[in-house]
C-alpha cells in the first residue's frame, strides 16, 4: 500500500512489548491509546493514498489469512474416522461370539434400536445402534470442545454450534422417526423408512456426512466441502450396495463373516486419510509474523490483485 509506511499504526512506533490480551489487560478499555498519536492522520492517509484496488486486495488477504488460521477440521475428520473404525466389531457376523438368534440378541428400549443408527441391519450385530448413538454424541461434544480450545489458542472462533445442533437434530430424528412410523402402521410415514437405505445398518455415516457438510459451511472451506460431499456420496453407496461385490469382482473373496466390513471401513478410510492430509496442510500454515497491512505488504497485494 502506498501509505503503508506512514501513519502511527504501521510505523516504527509499534509497541514491541504489547500484550496480546489487548484492552482487557486494562479493564478501563482504553489500552495505551491515550498516549499514542491519533488516527486522524491515518484516516486521512487511507483516503488520500489507498486505492479501491488496494483496499479490496487487503480485504481479500486478511480474509484468506483469517480463514486459514481458523481452519481446524482435521480433528473432526480423524475423530469420526476413528469412531467409524471402532464400529467394525458390530459389523462382524461373528460378533458377539456365540450370539444366539437374530432377534433375541436385541435387548433394551426399542426406540434406541433405531434403524437410522444401525439397529436391525442385516450387516450389524448386537449393540450397533447403541454404539453409534454414543459415538456420534461423543464426536459432537469433542468437536465442540476442540473448536472452542482451538479458537482460544488462535484467537479466532469458528461458529461450530451449527454443526453440533445439526448433529443433535439428526440424532433426534433418527430416534423418533422409526417410533412414529411403527405407531402409524402402514401410513404415509413409511416413506420416512426407506428400507433400501436402512437395511444394511450402515446409515450412521450418512448422518455424519450431513453434519460435515454443515461444518464445511461454517469453516468456509472448499476442501472440506469436497471431502464431506465425497464421504456423503460413499456413505450413501455403502448404505445402498454391498461393496463386497466389487471386491469379489476383483478376485478378492472376503470371508462371509467379514463381508460387511468394506461398507464401514471404506468411508472411515476417507475420513482418516483426508483428516491426516488436512492436518499436514494446516500444520504447515503458520500465521505470518507481519500483518497483511504492514509496510510493503499492501503494495505486493495490490500488484497481485
Amino acid at each position: 500500500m502506498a501509505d503503508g509506511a506512514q501513519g502511527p499504526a504501521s510505523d516504527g512506533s509499534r509497541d514491541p512489548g504489547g500484550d496480546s490480551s489487548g484492552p482487557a489487560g486494562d479493564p478501563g478499555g482504553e489500552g495505551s491509546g491515550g498516549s499514542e498519536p491519533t488516527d486522524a492522520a491515518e484516516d486521512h492517509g487511507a483516503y488520500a493514498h489507498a486505492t479501491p484496488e488496494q483496499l479490496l486486495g487487503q480485504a481479500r488477504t486478511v480474509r484468506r489469512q483469517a480463514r486459514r488460521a481458523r481452519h481446524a477440521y482435521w480433528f473432526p475428520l480423524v475423530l469420526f474416522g476413528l469412531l467409524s473404525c471402532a464400529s467394525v466389531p458390530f459389523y462382524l457376523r461373528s460378533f458377539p461370539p456365540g450370539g444366539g438368534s437374530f432377534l433375541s440378541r436385541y435387548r433394551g428400549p426399542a426406540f434406541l434400536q433405531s434403524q437410522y443408527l444401525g439397529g436391525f441391519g442385516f450387516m450389524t450385530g448386537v449393540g450397533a445402534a447403541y454404539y453409534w448413538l454414543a459415538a456420534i454424541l461423543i464426536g459432537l461434544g469433542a468437536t465442540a470442545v476442540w473448536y472452542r480450545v482451538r479458537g482460544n489458542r488462535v484467537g479466532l472462533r469458528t461458529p461450530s454450534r451449527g454443526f453440533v445442533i445439526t448433529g443433535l437434530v439428526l440424532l433426534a430424528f433418527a430416534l423418533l422417526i422409526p417410533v412414529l412410523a411403527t405407531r402409524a402402521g402402514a401410513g404415509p410415514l413409511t416413506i420416512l423408512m426407506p428400507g433400501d437405505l436402512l437395511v444394511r445398518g450402515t446409515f450412521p455415516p450418512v448422518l455424519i456426512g450431513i453434519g460435515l457438510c454443515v461444518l464445511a459451511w461454517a469453516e468456509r472451506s472448499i476442501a472440506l466441502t469436497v471431502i464431506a460431499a465425497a464421504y456423503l456420496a460413499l456413505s450413501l453407496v455403502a448404505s445402498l450396495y454391498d461393496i463386497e461385490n466389487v471386491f469379489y469382482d476383483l478376485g478378492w473373496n472376503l470371508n462371509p463373516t467379514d463381508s460387511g466390513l468394506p461398507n464401514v471401513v471404506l468411508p472411515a478410510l476417507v475420513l482418516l486419510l483426508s483428516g491426516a492430509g488436512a492436518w499436514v496442510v494446516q500444520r504447515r500454515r503458520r500465521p505470518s509474523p507481519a500483518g497483511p497491512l504492514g509496510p510493503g505488504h499492501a503494495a505486493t497485494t495490490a500488484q497481485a490483485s
Partner: protein
Amino acid sequence: MTDHPTNGLDEIVHQRHRLGILTITAEAKRAEFGYLREALDLTPGNLSRHLTVLEEAGMVEVEKGYEGRRPRTWVSITRKGRSALTAELDALTKLVRGHKAEPERPASS
C-alpha cells in the same frame, strides 16, 4: 444524490484498518484482540481506538473477560457491521470495475 459508487462508501468503514477488522470478524464467530493486532500490524492503542469507533457506530461488539487468569478481549461483528462491510466491498468493486471500463482520455496539451 447520484448513484455513483462513492456514495456507497461509509466514512467509518472506508479506512483500511477498520475495513480489516470488519473483514476478519465477519470470517469468524469472534476474533481475539491479539489476533487482530497481529493480523493488522497495529499497536494495541491504535487497534483499541479503531474498535471504539466501530463499537460506537454499532458495527462490532467488544466483550472482555478472562480465560483462566489471562485477560481476553473478543470482538464480534454485528448485523449492522456486516451490512456496512458488504456495502463497502460492493462500492469498492464497482469503483474498480468502473475504473477499468473507463477508456483512457487523451492527454491534454
